């Protein structure tokens, strides 16, 4: 038990086996390993820190309760993501009157971009505006389109991983993603035509996408 705590490199399978044997330390290691990813994913649905924390705690407690049902046929994180997405969408549908509020705390959203140090103030401003509009449009999409865009564009999951998280066919992932992007583009054209590709934003922000592609 102690060895597991001292060795954060233990595989997920080892940790799961230890948790099922009653090791609290192993569960702590598992939570530490995945809490950032769970928070990041929940943050795409809910921007409130307290709500996110409550949801994240619920997610990990559900993992703890249901761990014996995990089949180990897929990666643990896809199972965890499935629970997280379900928790987030359930939460949103319960609180549908309080629609997704994307920019409750501007200070939380305006951090972490590598481009900010080098970009001109105008480019920074446009990038911030583009980010705001993107979040706004994603939030307004139907749940299934929003989730698939979040998993692909923000979480960088592959089609296979998305299929595993959402328990759908690979072909469905591709077609749903295509429709989601189409809806996104139509919404952008309707509400912010000045940001639709072809404008000057292309030159200033396109490089970051290319950078992300290079990382994958």
């Amino acid at each position, binding site marked *: 038990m102690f060895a597991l705590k001292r060795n954060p490199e233990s595989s997920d399978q080892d940790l799961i086996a230890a948790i099922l044997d009653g090791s609290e330390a192993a*569960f702590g290691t598992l939570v530490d390993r995945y809490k950032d990813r769970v928070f990041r994913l929940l943050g795409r649905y809910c*921007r409130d820190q307290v709500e996110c924390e409550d949801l994240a705690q619920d997610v990990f*407690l559900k993992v703890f309760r249901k761990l014996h049902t995990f089949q180990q046929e897929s990666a643990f994180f896809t199972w965890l993501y499935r629970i997280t997405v379900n928790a987030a969408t359930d939460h949103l549908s319960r609180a549908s009157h309080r629609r997704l509020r994307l920019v409750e705390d501007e200070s939380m*959203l305006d951090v*972490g971009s590598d481009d900010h140090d080098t970009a001109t103030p105008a480019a920074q401003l446009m990038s911030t505006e583009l980010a705001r509009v993107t979040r706004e449009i994603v939030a307004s999409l139907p749940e299934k389109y929003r989730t698939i865009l979040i998993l692909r564009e923000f979480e960088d999951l592959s089609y296979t991983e998305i299929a595993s998280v959402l328990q759908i066919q690979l072909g469905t992932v591709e077609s749903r993603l295509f429709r989601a992007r189409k809806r996104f583009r139509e919404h952008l054209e309707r509400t912010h035509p000045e940001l639709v*590709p072809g404008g000057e934003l292309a030159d200033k922000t396109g490089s970051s996408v290319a*950078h992300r592609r290079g990382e994958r």
Partner: protein
Amino acid sequence: MKLTHADELLLHRFLDGEMDSAQAVAFEARLAAEPRLRRRLEDETTLRAGFAAAHAGGPAPRAGFTAGVLAAARCLPSRQQMKRDEVVAEFVRTCRRVLIAAAVLFGISLAWYAGLMDSRRSATLEAVPRWEIEKEMKRLDALIESGALGAPPAERRGK
């Protein structure tokens, strides 16, 4: 001019890094040869820049989050107890489903018995096979001819 649906899917696969190297090379060759495809790729790349810009930020776990989860997990019943609870819950769920199904069947039977389920169609000649109608007509003709039903209406009027 718009791309075909197949080309659109290929474009997204390419941008998402979902092509194997041979497919990617073939697609890059097409990009070099087809300006229309290249322009569409540039547009899509720009559109995706919004996601890249919105990538950062969001809530982060506070220090002590893990300890909080562990404390909450300690309050849960033991794993054996949870399994037992789950079995009981599954049994209750099954019973509930069976009861609901029985109630629905009972309701349908009651409605049927009370005559609420009779459709208009079954009361018309449409529902009866043609041969049965013909048989019935013959039987009625035979009855009329035999006089068992009394004189035909025309004869009665004549009298």
